[in-house]
């Protein structure tokens, strides 16, 4: 692009951001901070200004924070046109227009897609409609679930023991509510952290009074005559009575609105290059459509250039900032998004944090502390190098392991560390077969190729 053209874009261009949550807001702020003076539009399907989601499954459920008080702080004025409560329904790449649910169309010179993910609903629609069957993703979801927990249900049933499901279980136990958790795999958190850590999570749940059922699936939800859920049927033929059911089966990427647009978008997200530019369905990079946040999948040099989809708060912020920067500059001024995957959780009084990509790990060794005490650092190895680390109540060491990952340090860890125990030998990390559907690991290795071979283009009918 010529310098003239770029200057014009920065002065009077039109930038549209679809998705008004964390990534959308931070991108808007970065655009203004870096001098974008043109017209800025934020489109969001929820009626709310951007709000923070991590508290929704933690303090909000305990009544320690109001679901309507988690607004994200604005770092600066963004002087944007807000289109809230209206979903984007289509994209015309050649005409550079976003279609909205209310029939409006918004033109752009540059587009940022940050539509994120939504909770995967219960697959039987009639059962999903039963009163008491809940999802947890949005502020309204959290408000609804909070009200139901406060009402003192006889039992809460949680389908799926990933992070979200486990956090809800923790909140229930803290409130003294009986809770059953069903998990298709052998333990909680296995998709994200593997079976060795999953066994620790099992102990954590059962000792805190969770009725944990593993290696089972839910076959049906049963309602009463008034349309309220009353029982859950499991694949082992047991039946558990419950008046609240939380469906926690991971998330789905909000890409359906792009069907037929010609973008390389599908159930696994929208493929983009390290500079956050979206690929079209042919694997050719676009130059005016950018992607950030949970909906993006982008290649990462530290992890074999695999395309990673990251449902991480910090990734949304970092990728949004990089995308915004790259949207209003050129060539050598552009930056790659090379964020170190990291996420945290807290449940049953334990702080869990991870860096790197644990699901890539073949082996794990506990380098500090002990699994039995549930205070430890575990390091994951992949083809002879350190690929990830996880800590339970040992967050302050992780920076060190992050540097080890960055420099491709050898695995097994050959040096001694403080608080090394006899158990600190490498063992199989014990991840479930990734092709098995489960609650989703929050980091998804989604292949090497920008253009998925199986992707079939269905032009939209306008």
């Amino acid at each position, binding site marked *: 692009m010529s310098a003239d053209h770029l200057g014009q874009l920065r002065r009077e261009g039109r930038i549209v951001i679809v998705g008004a949550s964390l990534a959308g807001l931070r991108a808007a702020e970065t655009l203004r901070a870096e001098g974008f003076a043109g017209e800025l539009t934020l489109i969001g399907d929820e009626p709310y200004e951007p709000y923070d989601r991590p508290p929704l499954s933690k303090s909000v459920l305990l009544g320690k924070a109001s679901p309507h008080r988690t607004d994200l702080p604005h770092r600066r004025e963004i002087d944007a046109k807000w289109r809230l409560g209206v979903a984007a329904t289509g994209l015309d790449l050649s005409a550079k227009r976003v279609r909205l649910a209310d029939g409006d169309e918004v033109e752009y010179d540059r587009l940022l897609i940050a539509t994120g993910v939504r909770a995967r609903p219960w697959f039987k629609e009639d059962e999903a409609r039963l009163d008491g069957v809940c999802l947890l993703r949005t502020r309204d979801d959290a408000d609804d679930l909070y009200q139901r927990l406060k009402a003192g249900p006889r039992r809460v049933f949680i389908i799926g023991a990933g992070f979200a499901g486990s956090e809800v279980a923790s909140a229930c136990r803290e409130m003294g509510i009986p809770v059953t958790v069903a998990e298709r795999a052998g333990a909680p958190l296995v998709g994200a952290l593997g079976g060795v850590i999953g066994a620790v999570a099992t102990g954590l749940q059962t000792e805190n009074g969770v009725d944990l059922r593993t290696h089972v699936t839910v076959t049906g939800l049963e309602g009463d005559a008034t349309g309220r859920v009353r029982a859950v049927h499991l694949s082992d033929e047991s039946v558990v009575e419950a008046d609240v059911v939380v469906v926690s089966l991971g998330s789905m990427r909000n890409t359906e609105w792009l069907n037929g647009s010609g973008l390389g978008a599908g159930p696994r997200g929208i493929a983009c290059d390290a500079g956050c530019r979206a690929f079209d369905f042919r694997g050719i990079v676009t130059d005016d459509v950018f992607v950030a946040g949970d909906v993006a999948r982008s290649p990462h040099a530290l992890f074999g250039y695999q395309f990673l989809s990251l449902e991480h708060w910090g990734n949304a912020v970092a990728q949004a900032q990089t995308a915004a920067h790259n949207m209003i500059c050129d060539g050598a001024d552009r930056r790659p998004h090379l964020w170190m995957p990291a996420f945290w959780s807290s449940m049953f009084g334990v702080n869990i944090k991870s860096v790197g990509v644990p699901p890539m790990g073949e082996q794990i060794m506990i380098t*500090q*502390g002990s699994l039995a005490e549930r*205070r430890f650092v575990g390091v994951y190895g992949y083809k002879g190098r350190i690929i990830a680390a996880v800590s339970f109540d040992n967050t*302050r060491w992780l*920076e*060190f392991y992050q540097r080890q990952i960055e420099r491709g340090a050898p695995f097994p860890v050959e*040096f001694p*560390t403080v608080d090394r125990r006899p158990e600190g030998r490498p063992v199989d990390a014990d991840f479930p077969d990734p092709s098995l559907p489960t609650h989703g690991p929050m980091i998804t290795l989604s292949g090497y190729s920008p253009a998925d071979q199986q992707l079939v283009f269905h032009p939209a009918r306008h």
Partner: protein
Amino acid sequence: MTHPSMLRRITDFANRANPYPVYEELRKTPVLHEEDGPFVISSYYDIEALLHDPRISSDAVNLVDPGEDEVSGPEATGLPPSFIRLDPPEHDRLRRIANSSFGPPHRPRRIENMRGELAEIVSGLIDGLGDAREIDLVDEVAYPFPVTVICRLLGVPREDEPRFRAWVDPIVAGLDPDTRTSADSERTAQEARLQLGMYLNGLVEQRAKEPRDDMLSDLVNSQGPDGAMTTMEVLSTSVLLLIAGHETTVNLITNGMLTLLRHPEYLRRLREDPGLSPKIVEELLRYEPPVQLLPQRTCITDIEVRGVTIPKGSRIWLALAAGNRDPERFQDPDRFDPDRGDLQHLGFGSGIHSCFGAPLARLEAQIALSELARRLENPRLVEDPPPYRQNAVLRGPRHLKIAFDGLR
């Protein structure tokens, strides 16, 4: 060697008033190793990394050549090491028990709830200046304030201060690398630590029988998931908290007032807006950190820093004050600028040993400095630089003479 040793220059009292030119030179050799001396690390990023490095130990038993006082177990004359000189898991267990009486998650509001009490103590001390128009800030405010606070928090009678002062001084002197060399001072420090422990033991025994709302009672009666501390552990923890609880804060407040008097525009702004005090205190912790260096680390295996191999068991100094002014990390590092966008520092260390009392120290300094700014009319320095204490590690003025026109 043709030039004086860098280590000597760091500890040299002549450089105490302004050690920063020495640190600037020190950073030119980011891993400095002089014959038989420690490895001195002075760049921000290296220090930050080592503070999170699980190959680094704070436990003197891992030193190849520990000092005489450093490895005294319970069977020796002294108290066992406190958690500041231990590694996980012992460190973690003792710190968790101590923290269960101090901060979140068990006592999330303990410090915040002291806000009113702290303000009252400071007001009382300033009111007590009466008609004086020239004071020593150290003797009148910066020292008595944190001492009163830590005494109340722990449950040590304030009137015993002259007694424990006599033991605290030699212990603190023992932390100074310059005096370390003398076996005499090591023995004196060791003896003083034992005396202080015995004094605290009297209070602890009392609290075991009649608990009150103070930390000594909590420590001796702790019954959490980590179990109880042994009596010796209670004593060494109490010694640590009593000393660390005020020695460093004195310097933070004094360095703070000195710095504000040297930068009157910030003193004026603080007077007009006490809400500026958190920023001022954070920048102070970078610009004039009360703990200048951590001299007590070692490594449990050979490690490499910037291409230099540090052999297992070597003594490692982390020069926090040098890292805080590292131009590789901070723009314009020698400028006191509470408005700088990224207020970061190594003033409280980092990693598992990061300052236990930080929330209290922050609040004390914020309250003391904003009250001094608000109430002293036209304050000015009587001598600049002021006379310093000997200590190179816990650095600060011994006296800070201030003249002013009256109290508001």
